[in-house]
């Protein structure tokens, strides 16, 4: 094995590593250079998250337009607060947009679904979404069903 061949193939090896890294960044993790600056944050209050996680998707009409960045418990109201980043390209969400915690498929992951409102004014960075609908919790549903059956 000549010295040149060794050096050349090690060079190729390194380049392959770089290519793999770039592919990982751009194609696999969808990292784009201007990611962070291009979002604004809105908040919403829910009675029950039912298993929503940070990094969950925020979508409207089935299209992902942002993601959940932070979840915490408001210790005055004892309700859950969800902070989410919405892409700047979706800056025309009206003030009375409603948020619901939905499930992808029957047992799939939880995500936040937004539905459009009617007001002229738009949500700004730091605003609250007032109209929210908590996650459906299977136990509660069954309980309510049995209760109404019993009343019949």
């Amino acid at each position, binding site marked *: 094995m000549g010295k040149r061949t*060794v050096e050349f193939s*090690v060079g190729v*090896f390194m380049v392959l590593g770089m290519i*793999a890294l770039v592919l*990982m960044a751009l194609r696999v993790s969808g990292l784009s250079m201007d990611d962070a600056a291009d979002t604004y944050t809105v908040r919403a209050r829910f009675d029950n998250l039912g298993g929503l996680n940070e990094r969950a998707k925020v979508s409207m009409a089935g299209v992902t337009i942002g993601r959940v960045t932070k979840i915490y418990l408001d210790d005055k109201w004892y309700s859950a607060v969800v902070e989410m980043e919405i892409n700047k390209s979706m800056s025309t969400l009206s003030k009375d947009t409603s948020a619901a915690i939905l499930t992808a498929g*029957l047992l799939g992951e939880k995500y936040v679904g937004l539905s459009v409102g009617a007001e002229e004014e738009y949500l700004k960075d730091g605003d609250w979404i007032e109209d929210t609908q908590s996650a459906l919790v299977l136990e509660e549903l069954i309980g309510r069903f049995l209760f109404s059956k019993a009343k019949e």
Partner: protein
Amino acid sequence: MLNRIADMGRYGVQVIESLGSATLLFANSLMWGGPGSAGFADLVRQIFSVGVRSLSIIAVAGFFVGMVLGLQGYTILVDFGSEAALGTLVSLTLLRELGPVVTALLFAGRAGSALTAEIGLMKATEQLSAMEMMGVDPLKRVITPRLWAGIISMPILALIFSTVGIWGGAFVAVDMLGIDDGAYWGNMQAAVEFYNDVAKGIFKSFVFGWVVTWIAVYQGYASIPTSEGIGKATTQTVVVSSLAVLGLDFVLTAVMFGGV
């Protein structure tokens, strides 16, 4: 009974002793020199024999593992109607776990054992002694470039493994099972985070590269210089470093990906 206890004690002392001398070996060979201290050409030559020579096995293995993940993931996910999440499953599994771990295991078998045998043979044929008598520190000349080569090569190999695997998964998912191209890549991109998944996986493989190479060079350096001794040391390298990789993987996963 007493004998058994004494044996166990002796064994324990031996283990601690070899851990100590392995640490000394590591410190002596790395503290006094960065990657290029024994000459850059040496490092390149070692990256060639440690990294480049492992490339084909890593790439082929990665492709098959990715395809298997695609098939198995599909049969599981399709029951829940979430086969669109296949890209996510394949990529996260590879990036977080299988990429670093399987690469490290293959690396231990392919490059680690070769390193041990090579160094053991150099010891048996008195090449290391001859070097010492020339006033050349074999730790720096022989051990240091090999250690660095392993530490540098392993993350690259793991990255290539994962990349090839993800594309192998895409081949099965999109071309064979007919999952929508956009769903495979789109869901993957939404779920995979560069820092949390890719970078942490690279960190894992970096640690594994370090551990496997360290064990390999130590086993070679401390081997009994006979054909039997070298054979034993080679086996020992594969066994010990595989176990170390799996054990460390648990620790790293617990620390980095939480949940414990």
